[in-house]
């Protein structure tokens, strides 16, 4: 397969996953804004949301203080924000359009329909659009595209490159979502264990569509350790860091088998997976959640770099 084709497939998948993350963060912020703040008024976690997306400064420059309406526009429709749902879906479609020959007609149809619907949403009056519905629509569209990929694409190298895009981005995004929690908590560590703390963890679970999963898996009350275990180390939870890294390794292994060459990316990813598999929640908290997440994102980024140089530039290592 052309290296450029592989690269477009990989990035297409990354952007789809990223659009979903933005939508999840939007949902989480909107829900947190409905919670009373300690000492009166309501919480404003939008800064934390923007921080998690690495867009706080860009937002401030354009809009000033994070007012919900502006954050919604910025995160959903703003083409100047590379992490907005609109930018991500446009970029996903642009990548897909270039390599249409490598996509089944159902996959292309799902991506293109998403894009057309998004343009229709963009033309609607903002006052008629409800943020939760926009977020739901985004997640639904992402599911539609992934479903089309899952059920119609040939299980060839192209499929693996899309899978890699999903899993690498997903690992990064779960880490970012978790990190929002860190920023929210940062002002005062005395919140830990309070009723407010609990409800924020619950919101985080909801935004990952993991609330029920948590209840089923861990029974009992919500604690930071259990949630960290679910989102980082639980093999059953598909968005956990371990699951995402496992998927990355699986796709890289399949590529290495198919091509008969095991490049640097594969060994890097295997090493990372081995480390994660042996980690304990206590160690993570000892290290500091934020530090751990930063380290994870760094390792994940190295794997992405290696995928780039092993496969996506077309000159053997």
């Amino acid at each position: 397969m052309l290296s450029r084709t592989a690269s477009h497939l990989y990035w297409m998948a990354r952007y789809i996953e990223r659009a979903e993350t933005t939508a999840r963060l939007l949902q989480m912020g909107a829900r947190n804004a409905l919670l009373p703040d300690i000492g009166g008024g309501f919480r404003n976690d939008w800064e934390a949301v923007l921080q998690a997306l690495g867009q706080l400064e860009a937002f401030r420059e354009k809009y000033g203080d994070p007012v919900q309406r502006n954050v919604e526009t910025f995160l959903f429709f703003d083409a100047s924000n590379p992490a907005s749902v609109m930018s991500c879906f446009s970029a996903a479609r642009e990548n897909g359009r270039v390599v249409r020959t490598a996509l089944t007609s159902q996959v292309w149809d799902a991506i293109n329909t998403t894009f057309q619907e998004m343009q229709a949403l963009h033309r609607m009056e903002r006052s008629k659009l409800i943020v939760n519905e926009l977020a739901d629509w985004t997640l639904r569209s992402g599911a539609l595209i992934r479903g089309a990929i899952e059920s119609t694409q040939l299980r060839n190298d192209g499929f693996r490159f899309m899978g890699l895009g999903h899993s690498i981005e997903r690992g990064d995004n779960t880490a970012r979502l978790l990190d929002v929690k860190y920023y929210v908590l940062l002002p005062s560590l005395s919140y830990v264990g309070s009723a407010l703390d609990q409800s924020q963890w619950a919101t985080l679970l909801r935004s990952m569509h993991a609330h029920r999963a948590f209840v089923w898996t861990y029974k009992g009350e919500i604690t930071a350790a259990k949630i960290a275990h679910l989102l980082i180390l639980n093999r059953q939870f598909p968005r956990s860091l371990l699951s995402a890294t496992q998927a990355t390794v699986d796709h890289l292994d399949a590529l290495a088998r198919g091509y008969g060459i095991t490049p640097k990316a594969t060994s890097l990813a295997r090493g990372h997976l081995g480390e994660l598999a042996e980690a304990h929640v206590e160690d993570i908290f000892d290290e500091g959640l934020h530090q751990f997440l930063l380290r994870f994102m760094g390792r994940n980024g190295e794997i992405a770099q290696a995928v780039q140089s092993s496969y996506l530039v077309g000159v053997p290592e």
Partner: protein
Amino acid sequence: MPETFNEMIDGGQVRPAYQSLERWQNEMPADLRQMKQSEAEALFRRVGITFAVYGEGGDPERLIPFDMFPRVFTAGEWRKLERGIRQRAAALNAFLADVYDQREIIRAGKIPEHLVTHNEAFERAVVGMRPPRNVWSHIVGVDLVRTGPDQFYVLEDNCRTPSGVSYMLQNREIMMRMFPHLFVENRIAPVDGYADALRHTLASVAPKKCDGDPTVVILTPGQFNSAYYEHSFLADLMGVELVEGQDLFVEGDFCWMRTTEGPKKVDVIYRRIDDAFLDPLCFRPDSMLGVPGLMNVYRSGGVSICSAPGAGVADDKAIYTFVPDMIRFYLGEAPILENVPTWQCAKPDECKYVLEHLSELVVKEVHGSGGYGMLVGPKADQSQIEAFRHKITEKPWNYIAQPTLALSACPTFVEEGVAPRHVDLRPYCLVGERIELVPGGLTRVALNEGSLVVNSSQGGGVKDTWVLAE
């Protein structure tokens, strides 16, 4: 102006080929028509059959308007067209082989030398080359117009990379999907063999150095090209890679593409970029679209390029006049399809005639395309005519003139119902091991009443084109 021939009507009667369509049209209520029309548009958008227009503002992805009323040719009409087009494609290729080699046609005094060697499309870099099977133009698009029941004229030839074939294929797909019963009532020859035939044609001109199954690719300027959809569509139908210049590189005697498994040798390049951009080392040094060193590989027989660099010299408007002479000279046959009579403003006596009859003629630039920069005399006002008189006097060699033909019209869906609109036809002839064409082509229609300009950039649309099976 002479009277317009309506392809549906003959002597006040609906022609047999159109009878079922006439019923279909009469029985279709206006609201159903509206619904079908928007269904067709939604299908085009959904499949993504758009052409890109950048830099004009508005939506960069435009649809070419699709008219649902098909255009019909009988088997007999098509037989004649097919023979004529194959003859023309053979002669154009013989001409190209000749002008880059012995130049017999020039020595025989049939074509003035300067028209060939001073032509911008003439490539010195390939003089003396002999591409595989001596084929230079592998896809010949012949633009035809009709003026009467049996009268067809060739408007121009396209020997480089004629576009539009994806519309021929998709218009048919959409008609079959929306109106299946029409295809039961009429026996319509299929066009979907085009992609197989194209792949066969391209594989059949693989270089001698290629052993085994040739690797064919389509070379596109990229996603911002207006015909990018067509490039990716054809690559998909043929199951070949769609590459950009950056995907290819030259090493040793061959051209390679960058893949996830390392370099892979490329044998045949169906290029959809112009000669000037193919190889920055040989042509334009600022080209980012091409592949440095490609022409050396091509000249030493390491890769085939379709159409061959230099093929454009055969489809120039000044050379066009001589195609009937080529047919007689190379094939020893009488031309089956006629040229439109053409005056060359480069010749003083013909130029004089043109200047005296500007209000009756169509004047075109020799290298112009897309319906721009032309004068349609009978529709022009005095100031436009005077402006052209000035231009022609300044640079006579830059212009040719033709009589205004009474282009045939086909029934077309318009605001008020169905009305005749002018049409042309572009079939696609493939030249490789065989010379062949699928029964059909792209019909372009001038949607504005009375307009003769069918270009999509100026209010033109497309129709499905039927050839009835015998």
